[in-house]
């Protein structure tokens, strides 16, 4: 007997996806994936594990040192998608819309939102950090694991004009031309992670690609990207500046080099620096004071909090805000969390998150909880009624 209202021919292909067997297989694979993804964290940092196991279509395995790999498990994105299809197909083909099923329906809707929310978060959420020293004001946050090449025109002392090239563009190589710059930037070599040593310590190293700036005195050795959470890639590149008259030289840029390197073209002075990628905000924060409370007679932290001033000339905001554990600042789509501290409690580190799918888990939680409660209480009351009869 067909229970759905849609024509049978249309539903046939859907039924393959609607089976409970598929659900159980998917959930089982999910358990295996999560278990292996937990074990992997003993050796890999959380970022590497997330990318490899959960934000991927397939999980690959390769023996130590080998350069081939085989897929061993569906990754998080693939499993999530199949489960989503399975759930939707099941509701399209098998479920009657009835009062008795209202709990299951709500609960599954919650699960769909939860899966969608995680997918959207994985794709669109951005986590950056803002490091503020006492009294410092910043209008941008930085990506902890991504760099950019900034070319800064410092000719006018009253303001800097910045052209920044994100890491993904640098990694593509080739030549970059920007209408505000009277030269092109040729990427001779890009190293996602590298070790930099002074040439004096390695006199036999091959000659550097760099012809000017700090580069000629530095030996650059390529390294694999780090998989540890407490390490940062030292991303480096050799870039050649080409004016109308030809090459001005090749520079080594790296986020390991804190100083800017300068050159001039057509009476304009430029400076080059590779730095953590910046995301500018329409407002700024000033750290007034960072507080680190401990329990009496111990080093156990009781609370961390940052008193900051929020400045937004566009909206006329100028007020003090207290950001503390479990109590973030939410402003214009960004959320600022107390994430860490440094320099003897004089520097605060705020995590800055922008997640368009932030609300979905909240709705999902409500739906799932309500659905389970409704469904199981119907069961329980049915059971008790039967016994009492």
């Amino acid at each position, binding site marked *: *007997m*067909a*229970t*759905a209202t849609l024509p049978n021919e249309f539903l046939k292909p859907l039924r393959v996806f609607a*089976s*409970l*067997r598929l*659900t*159980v297989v998917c*959930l089982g694979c999910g*358990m295996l994936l*999560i*278990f292996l*993804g*937990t*074990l992997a*964290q*003993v050796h890999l940092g*959380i970022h590497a594990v997330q990318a490899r*196991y959960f934000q991927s279509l397939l999980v690959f395995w390769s023996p130590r040192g080998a350069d081939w790999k085989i897929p061993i498990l569906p990754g998080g994105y693939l499993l999530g998608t199949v489960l989503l299809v399975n759930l939707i197909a099941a509701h399209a*083909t*098998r*479920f009657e819309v009835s009062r008795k*099923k209202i709990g299951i329906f709500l609960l599954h809707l919650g699960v769909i939102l*939860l899966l969608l*929310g*995680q997918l959207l*978060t994985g794709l669109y*959420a951005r986590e950056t950090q803002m490091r503020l020293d006492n009294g410092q004001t910043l209008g941008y946050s930085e990506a902890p694991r991504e760099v950019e090449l900034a070319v800064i025109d410092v000719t006018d002392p009253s303001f800097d004009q910045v052209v920044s090239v994100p890491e993904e563009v640098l990694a593509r190589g080739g030549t970059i031309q920007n209408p505000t710059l009277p030269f092109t930037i040729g990427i001779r070599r890009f190293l996602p992670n590298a070790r930099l040593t002074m040439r004096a310590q390695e006199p036999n190293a091959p000659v550097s690609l760099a012809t000017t700036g700090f580069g000629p005195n530095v030996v650059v050795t390529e390294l694999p990207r780090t998989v540890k959470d407490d390490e940062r890639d030292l991303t480096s590149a050799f870039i050649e500046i080409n004016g109308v008259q030809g090459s001005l030289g090749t520079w080594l840029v790296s986020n390991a080099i804190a100083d800017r390197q300068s050159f001039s073209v057509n009476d304009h002075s430029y400076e080059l620096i590779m730095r953590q990628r910046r995301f500018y905000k329409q407002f700024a924060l000033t750290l007034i004071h960072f507080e680190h409370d*401990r*329990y*009496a*007679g*111990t080093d*156990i*932290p*009781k609370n*961390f909090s940052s008193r900051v001033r929020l400045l937004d000339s566009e909206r006329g905001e100028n007020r003090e805000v207290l950001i503390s*554990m*479990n109590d*973030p600042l939410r402003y214009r789509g960004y*959320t600022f*969390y107390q*994430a860490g501290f440094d320099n003897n409690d004089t520097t605060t580190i705020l*995590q*800055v*998150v922008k*997640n368009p799918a*932030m609300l979905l*888990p*909240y709705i*999902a*939680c409500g739906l*799932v*909880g309500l659905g*389970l409660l409704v469904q*199981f209480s119907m*069961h329980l009351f049915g*059971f008790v009624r039967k*016994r009492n009869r």
Partner: protein
Amino acid sequence: MRKSRSWILWLIVGLTIVSVLAPLAQHDERDGFEMQKFGRLPVLLNGRIKPLDTVARTSLLIIQGKQTLTIEHGEMTAIDWLAEVMFKASEADRRKIFVIRSPETQAAIGRNDPAEKYFSFLDLSSHLQEIEQQADLAQKVEAQVRSPFQRDIIKLFERLTLYHRLQNTLEVAGTENFKAQIDDLLKNIHPSQVPMNSGITAEALQSLGFLAETGYFFPIPPVPPNDDPLQWRKMGESVLQFITAGDLHPAVSAWATMASAYAANDPAGFNAELDRYSDWVREHFPNRVHKAGVESVFNQLEPFYSAMIIYLLIFILACGSWLAWPQSLGRCAYVLLVVTFVIHTAGLITRMYLEGRPPVTNLYSSAVFIGWGAVLLGILLERFFRNGIGSATASAIGFLTLLIAHHLSLDGDTMEMMRAVLDTNAWLATHVVMVTLGYASTFLAGFLALTYIVRGAFTPSLDRATANSLARMVYGIVCFATLFSFVGTILGGIWADQSWGRFWGWDPKENGAALIVLWNAIILHARWGGLVRQRGLMVLAVFGNVVTSWSWFGVNMLGIGLHSYGFMDSAFPWLIGFALSQILFMLIGMLPLHTWRSQLEAPRAPPVREMTKVSA
């Protein structure tokens, strides 16, 4: 039940209650010193104001692994021992309280006698330097990769440090008459901003500085009296304050008087000062004194320890009811279960009152709460089914979780302060309670399934009716488990979103919670889809025990992530053993039916498809 047996039932219940309350009748008055009263004095340690009795018990636990000390003629309570450590250093130094089992560690102190395991501070005092050196070397190795010797020597060093600090908390160890020293200071000192100008000798100043630095707990309450724990002071600090600012704190001379009286074997003087100081703190800190009193009664009663033992008794009674006198034994087990549950609950509520927190704040309290939740559900099952199964499984889980809690309590004070991000009662009360109830119900379903398999495979006692009622219980409890663990896990995600800015971070503890949700969902879907029948349901539910124990303990042993509580190496073999035993039971559950001792014909009804209707 026949009337003739009912008096036996009530006798057993009465005896149980009496034996639980019996410790209250004991009066600790060692050689005329009012030690019980002494143990109730409030002091500050690790951020919490607690009775001296708690300091004594946790210190002795850390140092020798037990809360009482066995001596030549009987036993010594923790507070007796602490008083001796603080006031009669020379005698305390001879007590053999340091346990050293590892031959390698024994070699480090120049001993090589496998029969000798207990050492006194005096035995070890000539090797302190070697021990410190070895511990320093071991500290440099990352915690996860330390060898057993390295872990052992670090522990020994920590225990010695604790002992040393306890000795130098109220007075410098070996001081003969501390009260006289304080009196001398009062007479000869002219308080001055520059301590050297006050007329104090360089030696006295140095020893006060040592006392201020080394002291373990904070015995001096704030002046003027207030509730701020940050204003409690160590003995040395308070005396130094007097030297620079004048005004000796009344508590200083009270503690000093007690110290000197104890050292001089003067019970009357000790008790008089104790009475005077007790009245003074009660007058100025009534709430603190009340809490400290409640806590020391709680310590004395050890409700969870008593409950643990009674749960074991109930388990035996309930299992016995399947062999003989099902009515009487079953009823006795049930009544005792309810009584013990009341004791368990009272303990839980007392802890909540003392901490001012929801029930689960650390691994220890999660064990206590899992047992509590499972027993509550077990009582409900027993009320419905009245076949001893609810009592047996609930008491088994109650016993095991309290046993685990008992072992976790050996690390010291179980009422710790909550680290920054955890310092929020709202989330502790919702997310943590929900997830822990999820653990409790998943374990209960697993133990019910174990009952099914054990009774079915090894005894002839599993008839069709019992099997069907077990299946209903497991199914119902798995539904509960799904509800609690699912909602609890999502609430955890929301908490993470509130405090770290992301809903889900694939942290090991989060993953563990997700595994429980997924496993319960698998059980339910496999059942609805007809992929498993009655025995299959049982086998799956047993695996829930493995998943839950992994999530509860296993992930903490990885030593990574935001939720890790430190490396619990000693529990690791137990966890593996438990997992293997569960897999063995699953295999037994999958044996062909004719090998089982209970004759269960295959259920005639088709598999339940309660929630789905597959179109034909």
